[in-house]
């Protein structure tokens, strides 16, 4: 019988989550340093590649745009990211294995573009201090608000900007999984493929991401005068 008490609730996750945060991609497989592989193709091959690309990759553009928009929070940056991603994807389309998940392949390219873009701009995507996250998580993990209160007092009264603010306040690793799962509707397997992390890590980040999100939303509600008491 599954029992709350027979499950090791803390230590294993802590160890699993204390992985290295993602480092900027120095020389990824889609880097611009490589000679342009298109130069070798004949006009017929180029046209064929375009047709294949239009069939496989172009239909995912809206999804990628939404992801880019939510990650960057800026329409111009989202445009740039989509453009950059698709240009690289087209150049390196020969590296895409037909029959595999093109959406995940495109997401991987976009992630590299995103990281490299921040590196170029001498900024860094928010690095996750997993120990801080763990401490914060431990402090809130048992916070529960009566679901009815939560719905009526907190969520329904929050502004869309506050929701976006709460999402944007998450560190990149958590924000990514929340966006991909909750907003884009990707499965754990797809997210795992995209992030190149085990499914368990996806699950763990998602759980924590949502938990932190709840806390932020409650804080917003409190700051607007709504009384939201936690039940422990």
């Amino acid at each position: 019988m599954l029992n709350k008490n027979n499950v090791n609730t803390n230590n294993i996750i802590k160890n699993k989550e204390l992985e290295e945060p993602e480092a900027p991609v120095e020389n990824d497989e889609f880097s611009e340093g490589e000679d342009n592989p298109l130069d070798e193709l004949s006009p017929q091959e180029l046209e064929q590649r375009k047709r294949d690309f239009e069939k496989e990759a172009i239909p995912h553009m809206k999804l990628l745009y939404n992801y880019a928009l939510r990650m960057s929070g800026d329409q111009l940056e989202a445009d740039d990211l989509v453009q950059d991603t698709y240009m690289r994807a087209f150049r390196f389309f020969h590296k895409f294995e037909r029959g595999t998940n093109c959406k995940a392949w495109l997401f991987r390219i976009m992630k590299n573009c995103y990281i490299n873009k921040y590196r170029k701009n001498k900024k860094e995507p928010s690095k996750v201090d997993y120990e801080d996250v763990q401490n914060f998580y431990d402090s809130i993990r048992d916070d529960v608000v009566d679901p009815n209160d939560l719905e009526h007092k907190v969520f329904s009264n929050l502004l869309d900007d506050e929701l976006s603010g709460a999402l944007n306040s998450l560190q990149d690793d958590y924000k990514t999984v929340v966006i991909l799962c909750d907003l884009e509707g990707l499965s754990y397997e797809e997210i795992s493929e995209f992030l190149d992390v085990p499914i368990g890590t996806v699950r763990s980040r998602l759980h924590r991401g949502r938990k932190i999100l709840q806390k932020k939303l409650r804080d917003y509600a409190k700051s607007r005068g709504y009384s939201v008491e936690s039940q422990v």
Partner: protein
Amino acid sequence: MPMGQYTTTFNIDELITSYIDDEIPDPELKRQIEDMLGKDASLNAKYQSELLTRNMMRSRMPESELPVKTYQSVITSIDSIIAEASLKKNRGTVSQESVQYPSFWQTIKDTLTGKFIGVPRYAFAVLAFFIIGGLFVFSGGKEVKNPYILAGTEKSIMVQAVNSFHKILDGDISPKLRSSNAAEVEKYVQQTAHFNAYVPKIENYELKGVECSQYNGQELAHIIYENGDKQMIYILQTPVTSVEKKNLDLPSDVHNEMVNAKFYMCDQVDETDCTMTLWYRGNVICVSMTTMPKQDMYAAFTRFNK
């Protein structure tokens, strides 16, 4: 037993996360979780709370539409890199051939002057040149690439504008009221089509007149301008209510662009690569068509539409 596998790697809170996302494939484990949720009130509250958070994010943060300019810029960039790659390839081939095969032109000469069924091959080459050239000129050498024109039905305002513009060019529609007086044109539209048209003064262009027609029960005004070189700016106008009443369609992306950027401009809307511009003026939707290139139309448009 799957539970053992889970309990050694996950905690119960994470199992609930998986349960919420329907990511527990094992029916037995799923049943056990449901059992626990039924018995343990605090666990159930955690579950409800997380479920609400997820559902709220889904419902309150809907997907954005892909802006048409993002789509277009990606497609245009792909075309550019193809063109660039082809050019490089051609340059490479020609220079390589001129170095390694000095008899290249001789080979071509021999090929062309040789005979096929008693006729010199160059005669076939000339014939092919005229056929291909004719097709190129006939089609303008361009393709329609605007996604809204490609996917649009006849009800689309954009398709209506393209069709009407071509009818005007072909002489199938001509202005019923020929006048260069904007006030007269406005009055004519008011009396015939029952809405207030926008008749701007366009630098270097003369107002030639107006024709009104109906499509799907909707009044349309066709206002025509021409310059000294007989280049035309045609503006289709219809009240905003035409879209609200669903007599005509306007793609939501285009509408968003018209609201946010104040206008939507595109080329590659027909085989002659005309430029189309859409914008709101009061309660009227204006759609202009011209053979002018996009950048020239942009300059003209920003001057007259103030």
